[in-house]
């Protein structure tokens, strides 16, 4: 190939179409990974701008004029401010970054612009992970680096031309080669125990359990299939009907919603006494809830670090759970909770709003008169009412009026766990039995492959606890009286034909199996915090690795990788001498038979000596010698076909006779 010199030009030349196409692909990918959390109209507007710019540059190269650019910039800022309120924070910040990246494309004409754009695109790709750091999102974002790297490569002059998809390949190879070093850095870069600046706060409330409950507000939760937590048990997991995870305990009822008891700091700080039967140890990986509550299997006995147990055995962390959290707990499966009820708890457990739900009160009073002091019989009567009274389990019940429990019990007869637990608890209270509502999760999917219990948000549940003399607080699940499958199979199974198309069985099965990968990702990568990092060297006898040691390890590891890299970089491909290799092989075989080539001996002399020592194979050796000399000395480069023949002959040569 011939390359002609050019004179230096003062202005940077415009980039060619290939570079611009690759940059456009990069920016499109950035927009795609951000689209799920951008406002839909902003995504569409940005996509249209991008497409228009690409089409415009196809027709003639050149920057978009300033009279168009500046209004667009003002429009973008205005749009972000109007829709998010400000331009700081994670959500508006990323929206603005993506918008600016696309506007940058409008004025991209030189190599320098492209480099700035690629750097910015890398940053925007990373910022997508600040919002969703799941496995799929991370892989998609990492693949987004490929066109970015290809763009940078395409800027270099004088290359072997290749097709557009093929240009992505070298980037993939480069990233793959970088994986070991990236993993080392990932393991050893010291984590911050405290954030440098304001801890991130979620900009919108996530769906999750809330600390108040009014019938109907679980509906969103019960159709949300995202994982809430994953639980591993030491030993045998509890049977499905015992998988009740307690989160909040609700005491206060105002006629509309149930709320937690207001805790006074002077009293009620000691957890209620409990006599535990069988206990079980387990650990929980909790998906961030942005709340303080830590769900625990009924009833927790121990408390994880940086958390406190409330009197009613709720566990509250000291700070809201904004990052994935792992904790270990011990719970009692058989227990007697608070056998002696104090006055305050009794008062709380019996309070009801005056003037609401009169028919419920009448019914409860009738039961009390009929059964006398037999509290257990009243509980049974209520469960029988739910079971035989024509009640129906549905996720889309009819709306309820002011007297919500009256309406539910006597007219609509339909609802789900919230309705049943709410009505049941009020019935108990009206009959003079202390009762409370407990919310949390029930059930879950047992993953055979990973040996863990996957609890989804759709497993959210509400049940009741009643206090019976001599037995303490007892869990009663009135929903189970209507729909036993709710307890044994889960909310979606109980909902019957109200399943969405995407929740069919086989898809659900796939999703359950796929969850094991997500769990591995959540535990191994996302959950690798400063605590886990400090315990990194436990297998090597070092309990606690401090930051300095991590730094030293990182330095040693980097040096090691640099050494490997330099070794590769300095590797020179030596032109292989096939003839020499073949002769070496022949020499090895002859040496085993006792004919060793002396250092001063040329091939002709050596092979003649071998032929004399092995008279049976004299002809064969003579032929080998002749062809070797021919190949070696007749031409500069041995002819390929005779060379192959020689190599085959040398390979197949066997010493048959004994050396004399």
């Amino acid at each position, binding site marked *: 190939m011939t390359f002609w010199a050019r004179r*230096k030009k003062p202005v940077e030349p415009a980039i060619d179409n290939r570079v611009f196409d690759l940059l456009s692909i990069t920016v499109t990918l950035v927009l795609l990974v951000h689209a799920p959390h951008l406002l839909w109209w902003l995504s569409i507007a940005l996509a249209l701008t991008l497409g228009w710019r690409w089409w415009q540059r196809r027709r003639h190269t050149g920057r978009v004029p300033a009279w168009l650019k500046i209004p667009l910039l003002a429009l973008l800022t205005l749009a972000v401010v109007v829709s998010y309120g400000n331009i700081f924070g994670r959500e508006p910040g990323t929206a603005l970054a993506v918008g600016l990246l696309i506007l940058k494309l409008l004025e991209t004409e030189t190599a320098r612009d492209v480099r700035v754009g690629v750097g910015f695109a890398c940053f925007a790709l990373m910022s997508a992970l600040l919002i969703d750091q799941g496995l799929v999102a991370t892989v998609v*974002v990492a693949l987004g*680096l490929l066109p970015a790297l290809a763009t940078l490569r395409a800027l270099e*002059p004088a*290359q072997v031309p290749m097709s557009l998809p093929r240009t992505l390949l070298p980037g993939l190879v480069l*990233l793959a*080669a970088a994986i070991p070093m*990236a*993993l080392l850095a990932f393991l050893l870069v010291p984590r911050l125990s405290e954030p440098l600046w304001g801890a991130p706060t979620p900009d919108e409330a996530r769906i999750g359990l809330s600390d108040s409950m009014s019938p109907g507000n679980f509906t969103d939760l019960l159709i949300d299939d995202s994982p809430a937590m994953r639980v591993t048990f030491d030993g045998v997991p509890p049977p499905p009907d015992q998988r009740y995870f307690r989160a909040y305990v609700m005491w206060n009822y105002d006629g509309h919603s149930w709320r937690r008891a207001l805790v006074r700091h002077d009293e009620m700080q000691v957890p209620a006494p409990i006599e535990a039967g069988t206990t079980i140890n387990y650990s929980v990986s909790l998906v961030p809830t942005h709340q303080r509550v830590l769900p625990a299997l009924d009833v927790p006995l121990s408390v994880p670090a940086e958390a406190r147990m409330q009197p009613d055995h709720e566990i509250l962390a000291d700070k809201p759970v904004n990052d994935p959290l792992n904790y270990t707990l011990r719970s009692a499966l058989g227990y007697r909770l608070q056998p002696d009820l104090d006055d305050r708890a009794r008062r709380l457990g019996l309070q009801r709003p005056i003037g609401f739900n009169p028919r419920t009160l009448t019914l409860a009073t009738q039961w009390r008169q009929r059964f006398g002091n037999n509290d257990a019989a009243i509980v049974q009567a209520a469960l029988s009412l739910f079971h035989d009274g024509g009640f129906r389990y549905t996720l889309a019940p009819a709306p309820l009026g002011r007297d919500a429990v009256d309406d539910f019990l006597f007219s609509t007869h339909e609802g789900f766990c919230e309705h049943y637990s709410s009505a049941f608890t009020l019935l108990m209270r009206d009959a003079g039995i202390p009762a409370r509502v407990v919310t949390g999760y029930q059930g879950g999917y047992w993953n055979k492959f990973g040996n863990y219990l996957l609890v989804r948000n759709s497993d959210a549940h509400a049940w009741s606890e009643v206090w019976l003399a001599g037995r303490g607080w007892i869990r009663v699940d009135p929903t189970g009286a209507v729909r036993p499958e709710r307890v044994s199979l889960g909310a979606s199974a109980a909902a019957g034909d109200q399943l969405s198309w995407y929740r069919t069985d086989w898809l659900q099965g796939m999703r359950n199996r796929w969850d094991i990968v997500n769990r591995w990702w959540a535990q191994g990568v*996302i959950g690798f915090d400063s605590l886990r990092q400090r315990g990194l060297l436990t297998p090597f006898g070092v309990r606690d690795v401090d930051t300095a040691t991590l730094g030293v390890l990182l330095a040693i590891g980097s040096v090691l990788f640099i050494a490997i890299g330099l070794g590769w970089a300095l590797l020179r491909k030596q032109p292989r001498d096939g003839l020499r290799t073949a002769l070496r092989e022949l020499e090895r075989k002859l040496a085993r038979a006792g004919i060793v080539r002396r250092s001063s001996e040329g091939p002709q002399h050596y092979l003649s000596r071998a032929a004399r020592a092995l008279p049976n194979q004299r002809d064969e050796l003579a032929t080998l010698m002749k062809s070797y000399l021919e190949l070696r000395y007749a031409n500069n480069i041995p002819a390929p076909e005779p060379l192959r023949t020689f190599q085959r002959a040398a390979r197949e040569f066997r010493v048959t006779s004994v050396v004399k």
Partner: protein
Amino acid sequence: MHDLLQRLQTWAEHRLPALTRYRRPETLPIELHRRRIYIVPTMFGLGFSILLLVMMVGALNYSNNAALLLTCLLGAASSTSMLVGFRTLDGLHLSHIRAGHAVAGQPIELTLVFETVRARSSIRVDLDDAFTAFAIEADGTATVKMILATTYRGWQPLPRIRLWTTWPLGLFRAWSWLYPDQSVLVWPRPESAGPPPRAPADDARHMRLYRGDELAALRDYRAGDPQRHIAWKASAHHDNLLVKDFEQPQSRPQWQLDWRQLRSMDNESRIARLARWVGEAQAQRRSYSLWLPNSEIAASSGPLHYAHCMNMLAQLP
């Protein structure tokens, strides 16, 4: 400013040879190896590393491990690209340099021939203020044509050549200086106008018709052409017969160019005038001889003869 930098560089090269690797001219072929390849981040590389730092601090602050992993991956890939850049230059051979012909003041064409075992992309060559880039295939040869400005006649040493690359990502710039121990011969510039040589115009001996021995061209067969002049091989590719046409009969007088005729002039003017005469003789396809203090060139014609004469003129003291 530029002058100051230039002076500083010259000073540094003399004072700090270890730092700037001032290399003496070396004989071809030159092979690039690790002890003569340097690599530093480009401005874009520095900016990119700052960006990576910002990304890392952000990921750490939000204790977002996925973002941290991505940043580490990008960082590791960037460092690896440094090694790729090094490998682009490492092991490259500059096997030889061919020079064209040029008179003083006009640029001379240089042909640099590179050889390699593995394929390389995007290697740039800077030679004075000319630059180019080339790619080279595995076990291949790349021919790079450069332009070098000339100022005076005679042997002109080649300047230092810089090979550099920012392959693959433009984050690092690897370079190596080549200082081949080779000079190019620059021909003297002919004077623009002057008298024609004193020709022995009426010398009849030089007016005789003369059939040259050198093959000039092929032409169509005309009746009467001797059979042994037919170019049989060439005719096989054509419809009609072709005949080898030898040098046309000499119709112009031969020139005897002589240094001694120009006694009244200084050396450079003599050379310029002789160069012009040689050029005119070549243009008129005359036969000419040249007498110089250091050599005597017998009468002949053709490009080789012209080049020989110009070479001898260029090398005059």
